[in-house]
């Protein structure tokens, strides 16, 4: 049982590190704010959740604390991404390689009326 738990934990550490690295890689490769938020806000949070799971299993942190932290991360992460994205759109940062923009079209209509 103990070894099984440790094996799962080691797997979670490796996967968590890989996803965290991928989040940073996406942050470098993707072209603009909005697409970069996808990389940092999702891939990185997935990585941190896996690392937290491993921490819960390997150290005497306690399952309760780990689960509450994971819940807070999953609730707070998308909210943070939304706050940054909404602020970026409000101050008018353009999208790169965009193929449609419903919100921009709506705002132009309102400005025209």
């Amino acid at each position, binding site marked *: 049982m103990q070894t099984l738990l440790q094996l799962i934990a080691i797997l979670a550490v490796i996967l968590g590190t890989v*996803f965290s690295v*991928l989040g940073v*890689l*996406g942050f470098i*490769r*993707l*072209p*603009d704010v*909005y*697409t970069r*938020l*996808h*990389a940092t*806000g*999702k*891939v990185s*949070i*997935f*990585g941190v*959740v896996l690392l937290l799971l491993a921490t819960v299993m390997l150290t005497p*942190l*306690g399952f*309760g*604390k780990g*689960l*509450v932290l994971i819940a807070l991360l*999953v*609730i707070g992460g*998308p*909210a943070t*991404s*939304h706050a940054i*994205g*909404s602020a970026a*759109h409000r101050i008018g940062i353009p*999208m*790169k*390689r*965009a*193929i*449609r*923009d*419903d*919100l*921009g079209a*709506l705002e132009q209509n309102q400005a025209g009326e």
Partner: protein
Amino acid sequence: MHYIRTILILLVIYLALTGNLQPSNIVLGALVAAVATLLLRPQPSRLDWRRLPAATWALIRYIAILAVDVIESGITVARIVLDPKLPIRPGIVAIPSGCSSELGTALSAHALSVTPGELVIGIDDYGVLYTHCLDATHSAEYAAQAQAMRRDLLSKIFV
């Protein structure tokens, strides 16, 4: 009554975070929860006991769907990032949330932000979610479908 309910919920979260069940810690947790509740001033909401089993079941299913979505979105975005051609067709798509209440709209926006390659940028007065998609060509229909399913579950949880 709803003050006591909030205090109890906060106390359980406090005990989970500190992870020790000594009487002194429980008393301290109750005090912290009471002060936080007084500062929060929770609004009274009716609790219908007959709806509780259905709501709990819907909540469990919702959390399971959310967990699958988190894993899927991590893998989807990771694959896009690793692809040398970087196959993204970004754009902002309008998705109607279909919820009338503000809470429902906010929760839908959260669920939509968790799903693969989508991020809510803005919400208008009618509850339409303006969503930034990594692939805006065919994700609109898919997103609207997933949204309808989530709305059903959410309406079972919160009236």
